[in-house]
C-alpha cells in the first residue's frame, strides 16, 4: 500500500517538477483584460507593439461580467494593468469598488461629447476611445425567403410580419442590450417604453444569453432580425455576410471604454496604452474592416470610407435621447429582472397571446367589429401592464431587494415570483380575450 500512496505522491510531485519557468512578468509587459474579440485586439496589439518597441501587450479575453468578477476576486494581488471593454456600466461597477485609477489623458483632438454622452468618465477613472450605437441588423437572404420588409424603427419589429423572426440578448446578460432597453425606456417613457418592448417581444424568436449570440444567429441565417450594437453588423458585413443594419431614431451613441486598474503592476505601460488608443494612430485602427467602430477623434473620419456613419456630422445619430446615467444606474437590476421575469421566462405565454392578437387584428381587417376591437385593446393593455411603476422601480422597497444588502421590504425571490405570476396570469387572459375577439370578427 505504501507503494500506492507513493504513486499518488509522485504523480503530484512530478506535476510540480514539470512547472515551466512560466510567463514571469517581464519588464515592459502590459496586461489587458478585455471583452473584445481577437479581431479587435490583434490589430491594436500589433500597432501598439510597433509603436512601443520592447513592450508586449498580453491580452486576456474574458466576457465583461467574468472580467469584472476576476478583477474583484484577484484585487488582493492584482496582476492586471488595463481593463478594456464596451459596457460603461461595467466600468461604473469597477469604479464603485475602487478598482480603477484616476488619470488624465494627454491626447488631444478627442471630442468631449459623443452623441449625448460625455466621452470620458467625469471623475477621470475611465476613458471613451470609440463610440457605438444600437440598432437593427437583418439577414438579406432570410428576409427575401420570408418576405420580410426592411425595418427602420423599433416599432416595426412589433408588426405581425416579423412574428418569430427577431432575436435579442437578455439585458441581464449583455451590458450593451441593457443600454438599448434603457434607452428605449428613457426615450419613450417607462409605461410606453415597456408597452413597445413587450409588443416587440411577442415577436421574439429567441433571447440569447450572450451579446454575440444575436449577430451569430443572424449571420448564419437561423434568425432573420437582431437587435445589436452597430459594430457587430459592420464587422459581419466586412467579413462578407449578407447582412444589413439601420439605426432607429431612438438610439443612443455610447462610448466603449478603457481604464487603468488600481495598483497596476505596470502603471506606466498602462498609461502608454491608453494614450495610444486615443492617439491618431490608435484611433485610425478603429476603421479596420474587422473592427469598424466609431472613432472619438472627429478628424479621423476623413480617412474613413464614404458611407461610414459619423456621429459628429450626422445630427440624427443618437441625439434624440438624452441618456441619463443616474436614472439608469439606480434601476439597472430591476429593469433586467423585470425583463427576465416578464419576457424571457414567460416567452411562450407572451408569444401565444401576441399571436392571438395578431390573428384577431387580421380578422378585423377583413370584417370590422366594435366589440372585438375593444377586446383586442383590452388584450393589448393586459400585455402592457407593469407590476411596478417607474417611481417604485428606483424606490428603496423594490431596488433595495436587489442590492445584496439586507432590506426591509420583500426579498428578491419573492418579488420575482410575484412578477412572474403577474405576467403569466395577464398573458393568459390576453390570449383568451384575443381569441374571443377573433370569434366575434369571424
Amino acid at each position, binding site marked *: 500500500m505504501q507503494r500506492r500512496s507513493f504513486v499518488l505522491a509522485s504523480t503530484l510531485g512530478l506535476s510540480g517538477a514539470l512547472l515551466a519557468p512560466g510567463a514571469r512578468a517581464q519588464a515592459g509587459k502590459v496586461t489587458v483584460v478585455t471583452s473584445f474579440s481577437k479581431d479587435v485586439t490583434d490589430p491594436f496589439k500589433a500597432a501598439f507593439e510597433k509603436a512601443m518597441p520592447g513592450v508586449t501587450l498580453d491580452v486576456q479575453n474574458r466576457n465583461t461580467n467574468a472580467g469584472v468578477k476576476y478583477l474583484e476576486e484577484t484585487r488582493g494581488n492584482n496582476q492586471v494593468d488595463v481593463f478594456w471593454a464596451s459596457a460603461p456600466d461595467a466600468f461604473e461597477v469597477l469604479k464603485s469598488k475602487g478598482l480603477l485609477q484616476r488619470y488624465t489623458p494627454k491626447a488631444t483632438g478627442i471630442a468631449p461629447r459623443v452623441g449625448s454622452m460625455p466621452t470620458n468618465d467625469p471623475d477621470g477613472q475611465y476613458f471613451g476611445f470609440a463610440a457605438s450605437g444600437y440598432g437593427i441588423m437583418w439577414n438579406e437572404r432570410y428576409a427575401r425567403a420570408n418576405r420580410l420588409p426592411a425595418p427602420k424603427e423599433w416599432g416595426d419589429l412589433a408588426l405581425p410580419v416579423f412574428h418569430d423572426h427577431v432575436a435579442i440578448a437578455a439585458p441581464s446578460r449583455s451590458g450593451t442590450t441593457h443600454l438599448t432597453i434603457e434607452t428605449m425606456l428613457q426615450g419613450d417613457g417607462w409605461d410606453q417604453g415597456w408597452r413597445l418592448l413587450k409588443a416587440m417581444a411577442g415577436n421574439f424568436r429567441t433571447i440569447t444569453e450572450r451579446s454575440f449570440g444575436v449577430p451569430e444567429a443572424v449571420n*448564419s441565417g437561423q434568425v432573420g432580425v437582431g437587435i445589436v450594437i452597430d459594430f457587430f453588423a459592420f464587422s459581419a458585413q466586412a467579413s462578407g455576410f449578407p447582412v444589413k443594419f439601420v439605426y432607429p431614431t431612438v438610439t443612443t451613441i455610447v462610448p466603449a471604454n478603457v481604464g487603468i486598474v488600481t495598483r497596476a503592476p505596470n502603471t506606466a505601460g498602462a498609461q502608454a496604452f491608453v494614450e495610444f488608443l486615443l492617439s491618431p494612430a490608435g484611433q485610425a485602427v478603429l476603421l479596420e474592416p474587422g473592427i469598424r467602430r466609431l472613432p472619438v477623434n472627429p478628424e479621423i473620419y476623413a480617412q474613413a470610407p464614404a458611407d461610414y456613419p459619423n456621429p459628429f456630422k450626422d445630427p440624427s445619430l443618437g441625439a434624440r435621447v438624452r441618456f441619463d446615467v443616474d436614472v439608469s444606474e439606480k434601476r439597472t437590476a430591476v429593469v433586467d429582472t423585470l425583463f427576465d421575469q416578464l419576457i424571457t421566462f414567460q416567452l411562450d405565454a407572451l408569444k401565444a397571446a401576441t399571436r392571438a392578437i395578431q390573428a384577431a387584428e387580421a380578422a378585423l381587417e377583413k370584417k370590422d367589429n366594435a366589440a372585438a376591437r375593444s377586446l383586442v385593446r383590452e388584450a393589448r393593455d393586459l400585455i402592457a401592464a407593469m407590476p411596478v411603476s417607474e417611481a417604485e422601480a428606483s424606490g428603496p422597497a423594490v431596488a433595495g431587494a436587489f442590492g445584496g444588502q439586507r432590506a426591509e421590504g420583500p426579498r428578491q425571490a419573492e418579488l420575482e415570483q410575484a412578477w412572474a405570476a403577474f405576467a403569466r396570469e395577464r398573458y393568459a387572459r390576453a390570449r383568451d380575450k384575443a381569441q374571443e375577439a377573433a370569434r366575434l370578427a369571424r
Partner: protein
Amino acid sequence: MSATLSRPRAGRRAFTPGQAALAIAIALFLAAFLILPVATVMYVAFTEPGSGAFTLVNVWDAFRTELFVRSFLNSLYVSAATVLLASLFALPLAYITVRFHFRGALLIQTLGFLPLIMPPFAGAVAMQLLFGRNGTVNLLLGDWAGINIPFMEGLNGVVFVQAVHYFPFILVNLSAALRNIDSAMEEAAQNLGSSGFRLFRRIVFPLALPGYVAGASLVFVKVFDDLATPLLLNVKEMLAPQAYLRITSIGLADPMGYVISVVLIVVSVLAMWLSARAIRRGDYATVQRGGGGLARRRLGPGQAALAYGTVGLILALVLAPHLGLLLLSLATIWSFSPLPDGFTLAHYARVFSDSSAYIWNTVTYASLAALIDVVLGTAIAYLVLRTRLVGREWLDWTASAALAVPGVVLGIGYLRSFYGVTLPDGRPLASLWLVIVLALAIRRLPYALRACHAALQQISVSLEEAAENLGASKGRTVRRIVVPLMAGGILAGFISSFATAAVELSATLMLVQSNADAPLAYGLYVFMQSAAGRGPGAALGVIAVILVGACTFLSHLVIERSQRTRGRQA
C-alpha cells in the same frame, strides 16, 4: 447497505494502515481542491443577504418559485429521456462491435467516441447550421416537401442534442464491460441450451450491467448538470442554466443561484448513490480471466447488411455535427443556405500561424489531468470495493459531486482560495497553469472514477485472495493482478477524462492568466466572439476533435492489442 450474499468479500482485517493512509491522502486532496474552494462560494446559499447570518429561507424561497420548480421537473425529464435515447444509440454500437467479427470495429469505437468532444461555441454554430430551423436539413426538407422539423427546439431538442453528445459515456463503459465478460460464461449458458436474445438478456447483458449503469448514471447526472446544450438551444427553464445565469450576472448578489447549485449537487450525489444501490444487489464478478472477452461471431450476409446498416445510420446521425464543423472550418460564408458559398483553407492557415501554443497546452493539461484522474479513480474504487474503511463511500460521493459543481463556481472558488497564496517570487499561486490542471482533474474525476469502479466490480476478489495465498503482499497484488485486469476500464476512464478536459471551458475561462498558458478551448472562445473569427474558431475545433480522436484511437489500439495477447496466452 443491505447485506446480501454476494457482497464483495473483503479481506480478513478491516483495513491495513497503508489503506487508511491512502484514504486520508485522497480525502485531503478532495478537501483542498474541491470542498474548500466550492464552499467559499456556495455558503452564500445559506446566508441572509447583507447580514450574512445563517438561514434556510433561501431554500424555502426556491421551492416556492414556480420557475425553479418547473426548471427542476424539466431537468428531470430531459435527463431521463436522454438516458433512454442515448442507450438506443450506444447499445447496438457496443454490442455489434464487441460481439462480432466486424471490419472496422476499432474505427467505429473511435468514431463513436467523437461526439463527446464537441468544441464549445463552434460546435453549437455547426449544429444550428445543420439541424437548426434554417439549417441544411430543414432548408432541403422545405424545398422538397415543404416541412420543417424542429430538431433543436424546446426540451425535446435538448434531449436529441444531449443524447448525440453524451451517448459515448454509455458506449465506452459498456464496451469495456462487454470485453471483460469471459467467453466461458457464455459457453456454459450455451451448453445449457440458451441462445439468441435469451442468451443476451440473461447472461451477457446482466454481466455487463456495471458498465452500462456506470455509463447511464454518468449520462443522467451530466445532462442534469449540463448548461452548454440548453443554452445553445436557448432553453433557459432548466436547473443548470438557471444557476449559471444567476451566478454570472453582475450586480445580483442574490443567493438563489447558489441554492440551485446545492440542489444540483444533492441530486447528482443521490443519482450516483441510487445507481450504486441498484448494482449492489447482484454480483458481477467473474473469476476466469484471459479468455479475451466474448467469443466473436461471424455474421451471415443478411445479418452483416443489417449490422452495417444500423451502425452506419447511427454513426451518420451522431457524427453529423462534426461534419458540419468541418464544413464550417472550410467555408468562406455560410448563411441561410444548405452548403457554404465557397471553400477556403485560409482559416487553418490563420490558426496555425498564431495558435499553435493552444494545442500544445491542451495536450499537456488534459493528459496530466486525466492521469491524476485515473490514479485517484483507481485508488478510490479500490478503497470502496475492497476495504471496509469507515466512510469510504464518502470519497466516492464527494468525488462524484464534482460533476454537479458549475465550472464557473469552481473557477471563482479557486481564485478565492489560491489567489491569496503567493509563491516565493511574489506571484499568486492561482496564476500557475498547474491550477488549471487541478481544476480540470477535479471536474473530470467522476468520469474516470465511474469507469474504474465498474472495471473493479467485474473482477472477482478471489483472484486477489489467490495471489495473497501464494504469498504476494497487498501492494504487489494490486500491482500485478488488480491494475492489469482493470486496464481496459482505466483506459476508458483516461479517455473520457482526457477528451472532455480538452474542450472544457467554463472553469478555464476564469483561471487562464495569460495567453501563453491558455488551452485550446479558450482560444476557441476568443475566436468565436466575432464574425470574422468563426472560420478560424471552427478550424481550431476540428483540430481539437482530431487531436482527441487520435488519442482515443491509440488507446483503443492498446486495449485491443493487450486483449489479443491475453487471449493467446490463455
